[in-house]
């Protein structure tokens, strides 16, 4: 079980992700719509894991990831993106994302990634 923070500008995606997580016993500690707020909230609630959309208005996922890691090098961030944006995923991995999920995600695949990262042992 992990305490997860969802960052995605689309309410639809947040809803779908939240439902999957809750159904499988995870706790959704925050749902955020943009990068700036994500950083603020992260510091306040320190989730086990962050699911971060890459393409968002204002501060995008990559930038938010960078800033997050600067403040907390141990932050566990999993990037989410729709197919067709390989380059962005690769860049995020270089910055230090722990994993990535491609939309549309299979619930099992997503849960696997979360499990591996949140509970390394």
């Amino acid at each position, binding site marked *: 079980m992990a305490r997860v923070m969802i960052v995605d500008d689309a309410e639809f*995606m947040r809803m779908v992700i939240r439902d999957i997580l809750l159904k499988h016993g995870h706790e959704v500690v925050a749902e955020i719509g943009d990068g700036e707020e994500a950083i603020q909230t992260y510091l306040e609630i320190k989730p086990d894991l962050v699911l971060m959309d890459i393409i968002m208005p204002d501060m995008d996922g990559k930038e938010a990831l960078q800033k997050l890691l600067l403040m907390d090098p141990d932050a566990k961030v999993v990037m989410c993106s729709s197919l067709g944006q390989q380059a962005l995923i690769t860049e995020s991995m270089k910055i230090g994302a722990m994993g990535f999920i*491609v939309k*549309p995600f299979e619930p099992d695949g997503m849960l696997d990634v979360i499990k591996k990262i949140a509970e390394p042992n």
Partner: protein
Amino acid sequence: MDMSKYIGIFRSESEKNIKEISDSLLELEQDPGNMEQMNVMFRAAHTFKGMAATMGFKQIVELTHEMESLIDRFRKGRLTLDSSLIDIIFECLDALEGLVENVCKGMESKAVEGKNDRSEGNKSYPDAVEVLKTLRNINNSSEEVLPLKSEFESFSADKKIEEKVEKKEEREEEKKLESINEELKEKKSFTYSGLDFKVKNVQNSRIQDSKIQDSKIQDLKIRDSKIQDSKTRVTRIQSSRISTEQLDKLMNLVGELVINRSRVKELTEESKSKDLELALSDFQKLTRELQEEVLEIRMVPLDHITNIFPRMIRDLARAQNKKINFIIKGKEIKLDRAIMEEIGDPLVHLLRNAVDHGIEIPEERVELGKEESGTIMITASKQQNYVLIKIEDDGRGISTEEIRKAALEKGLISRGEAEQLSEREAIQLIFAPGLSTASAVTDLSGRGVGMDVVKNRIERLGGSVKVESKLGSGSKFELKLPITIALYQAMLVKVGMERYAIPFTSIVKSISVRKEEVRHIRGEEVIVINEKALPLLRLRKLFQLPADQREENLVIVIVEKAGRDIGFVVDALLGKQEVIIKNFRSRLMEKTRGFGGATIMGDGSVILILDVNSII
């Protein structure tokens, strides 16, 4: 995983994304270098695709994917966004709108296991398959406009090498990723499909630019024929989950409650009980709050119907080679949903007229010493008892000469009237039913078709419409609309033994004048205010009651009808009152002119509501 429960949010977010892209396109057409709008558009397309993929809507994914790729090329400066490409993306958005509507209907009907009326579904949407083809042609053909010297042969060879390099890089990146996430199933299929796509790209890169041109032209043809009907449809209001019937019923119940409250109030006053009075004051407060809430639920911002206008104006202007600057002010103003749904078509009509007949082509405007771009502006504002919507343009205006001539020809007015009518009165003739079909008017003066329909619609709502125009410099239409439909603010007046209600939407003001101030012009009674003659209508006379002999002062309610003021002479003003309108359900009353309905007072008595538009 059952996705049907997300259909509602999918729909509203899809609509939001479509709207965002559409708005950005309109901005970009004016300001092609606006990177911020470009990014907004890209993000919206991308988000849309992600949602559709999650829902498993393949067709929408394909279309949004191509759209995203196309926008990405604009964003990266590989392709220039011109008006014909904007047309294509608009076409794509229309197709997407159709697809979204269809899948949503499909899912909703599956969810309730009931039949759903699909007949009205995608009738005016472009064919998604065709649009997809067009987009693919553009995306798959050569990326840049080729410099003349480069031969296609060598170009595609270069391309292949480039692609190979890219592919190699990609594979290396893949490996890195794989080490982190080796068990993710999606990964493989995702990368392969990406590669597939690239390979296809290379194969198709010989396709020449002319193909883009072809598809663009074809598309434009489709567009032009569709502008006529596709954008005149007014979007229905979707966001509320309460059915309109339920809302109406709720409204009616609250209306009954208010009437009942007045009854209780009167009984309380008779009984002179302190306790009852106290209880009543709470009761009154609660019913008022309830009433306000119910009214509020029924309200929707004007944006619900105006949001399709910028695009509509843009398409119309483009089809006619006109340049138009379109401004909407006050789109946050709220109106009752029933009113909102009724005024969509009239507004579309007025706007179309302004584009078709009002605004001149740029050359003509320049010659006239006007700005090259015409301006059409909608301004909505909330007045005390009604909402005012103005539609102004700075086009050629309406020729009253032509209107007089046409009205005379049609036998709507006599020769004498034609000469006597003031400019202001003459121009109101465009609302006359017979005139509207006169093609001469449509061609010469610009306005005409269906203006009587516009007027009828607005008046049926208890509103009014008037027009002002100056030949050569533009026209202005003003719609006055009640804020709510079932509940009016009205002035109660007394005439003889009866009480009547006059809706505030019609009232300009009330005055009292001395008997001696009445003048006679051509046998008609008038009074002079602000150096203008105000014709009087004695309601006693109209209702065939004997004149009140004792009167020293005349109590006059000045009402406005089609831009003209008229003074209703009443016995007394009884004060402002909220009235709940009960429509007549009888043939007899329907044909009786002068009354818009009736209302029930607290004491149970029935009061007729005067309809200013039909009384004179």
